[in-house]
């Protein structure tokens, strides 16, 4: 077909400035950066409150080491603020009905309720070992008195989000020594 070349044909073509990178609001201005950069620069959350952000970071880090630094909470927060038809969240693949924020909010409430029942404290305040023990039970739907979507589903979705930010990026591939070989590379190495 005319106009179709080999790898890299799109480099000079129509990839717009924002395709493949995320827009974060800093001081009222939209800036394109990765979730990791957004976290490092302390970009305020749009939809999550401070506790929800910390809870997602703690859960993400328990599930996939480095997810906190990779900006899991900023990624989810930014993605919850875009229309569902533009969302990159795994919630889409899990067939959730928008708004996807409902899932994350209720998951955090369920995790904290379970954690308080078991350990007398919110999940973010648990030791690393207790966080692991809790997630292991949640994975198996074994947290007592759990309410809302099954723990195994919460585990699967949050784990998948954390895998995205840690291993789904070009840096993630590089860290594992896997050649990325893109046809159209995501901008900002996403």
């Amino acid at each position, binding site marked *: *077909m*005319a106009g*179709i*070349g*080999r*790898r890299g*044909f*799109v480099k000079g*073509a*129509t*990839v717009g400035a924002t*395709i*493949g990178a995320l827009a974060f609001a800093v001081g009222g201005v939209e800036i394109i950066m990765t979730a990791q950069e957004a976290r490092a620069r302390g970009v305020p959350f749009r939809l999550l409150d401070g506790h929800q952000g910390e809870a997602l970071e703690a859960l993400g880090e*328990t*599930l*996939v*080491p*480095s997810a906190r630094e990779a900006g899991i909470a900023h990624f989810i927060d930014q993605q919850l603020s875009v229309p*569902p*038809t*533009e*969302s*990159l*969240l*795994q919630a*889409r*693949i*899990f*067939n959730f*009905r*928008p708004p996807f924020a409902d899932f994350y909010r209720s998951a955090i409430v369920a995790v904290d309720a379970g954690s308080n029942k078991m350990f007398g404290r919110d999940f973010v305040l648990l030791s690393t070992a207790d966080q*692991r023990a809790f*997630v*292991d039970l949640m*994975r198996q739907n074994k947290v007592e008195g759990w309410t809302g979507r099954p723990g195994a589903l919460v*585990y*699967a979705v949050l*784990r*998948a989000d954390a*895998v*995205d930010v840690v*291993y*789904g*990026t070009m840096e*993630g*591939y590089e860290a*594992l*020594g*896997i*050649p*990325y*070989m*893109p*046809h*159209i*590379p*995501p901008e900002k190495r*996403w």
Partner: protein
Amino acid sequence: MSNEKVDVVIVGAGASGSVYASVLAKAGKKVVLLESGPDWELSDLISSEIWGRRIKPAGAPILLEGKNPMTYAAQGGWGVGGAALHYFANFPRLLPTDFRIKSEHSRAHDWPIAYEDVAPFYDKVARDTGVSGDAKAEEKWRPAGEAYPMPPMKTFRNGDIWLKGFDAAGIRMVPAPVGMNSVEYHGRPACLYDGWCHVGCPIGALANPQITYLGNARKAGAEVRALSTVTRILTNQAGTRVTGVEYYDDKHGKQIQEANVVVLAAWSAQNPRLLLNSATDKHAKGLSNSSGLVGKFMMSHHVASTWGMFDEDTQNHMGTIAVQYMSYEHYPKTSHPGAFGSSFITAGFALKTTDLAVSRADLFGPELADYMKQAARHLAGIKTFGEEQPRMENRVELTGEKDEFGMPLGKLFHSYDEDAVALWNANLEEGLKVARAAGAREAWSARGAMPTSHLMGGTIMGTGADNSVVNSFGQSHEIPNLWIAGPSIFPTAGASNPTFTIFALSQRGAERMASQWSTLTN
């Protein structure tokens, strides 16, 4: 708002709709395709698992129920090209036994046609879209046909490594047929084996509808209206003919598109949803539904995945997302004692980091980090697709809840029966034996939720309105200018990936429509 009347309006610009558009536009008909998603361009196909999700359905208007709910969004498409914009392009065909399961086994239904009726269309689709494979090698299991137009794809260690194990199990593997270019074909380049197919191949090495049928259709004058969601099929007062469709445009404005013929090509769950939502006083149960079978006999394939960790480097970043090897060795329906249904065995495919993580879904924390390092070099997989028998209970119904256009949401009920579970288990056990014999240092089955892959049924074909919704061409038994395309017309599922058959049946149906045109026009 009303639009100028056209010859054919097609609902859905995916795999099946694009074939109808191509054949009919080339036959000189004025064709409009209405597609609820965006008009994707090849430059939208970013090589990223994360960004690849933009081209998937969002907020699917189908609610899921049952013991084994369908993974609807993961299996579906949204936007021009449909799911075939980002399918894996595995192109096995059904075998003669699939067409006569009732005659041979007193189970399910026979198709109203035989393999021989579809075979010439498999050959035509292969020529038109480009298929790589080794037809001679497959002919051990099926009647002879034309050679594929391209030689088989390259293989890599992640595929070759399994051959010893299959050999030990007495299973002969042959090159898998795929809708991808092993060499340059029709001006489209050869594959580069980077494994990004599942988020769309922007160079055109994979035969997605945008660069095959839809490209031809557009050249022949077909119009594609993206972001246009059809909500009802309209009928004349007597209820004897369809007159067009109602849809909502990109600005959410209500529109009417009149047409001589309506083709529903909106995939298995949406086709019945639209028929049910188009009920009138003349068709109180929905269009083409005097049998009560619209929405019934929804089917899926269960996939038995086996993973092996090998000492050697499996080069698992190389290859395509389609499979390298396949076998019909256990396709006969009674191959596994105590289970029933066909199995389609495949091996070798490229893996991305999400696949590595999913292959051990139980691991998290430091154990997952260690595993990812190993898996990146040494993991390889095999997958066996299994047949599910059609059952009335697996169905689509309308619910009281509405979508943004006021159309009732559909609810898809899906549960596997004992036959399906037994077959899945047998395939998993066989996979483990193969993996061990192949020399895997560790081998395990992907257990957990039983997978649902592909969606078929819902408007099945048959010999008459008492046993089915459409005839073998996809034409409604009750309303002659209403046609249905895609896997929803499959009366049984077989175990082969469906899209080669979808293309072939659509080609057959569209040619029939063109040849019978004078009987269809209002």
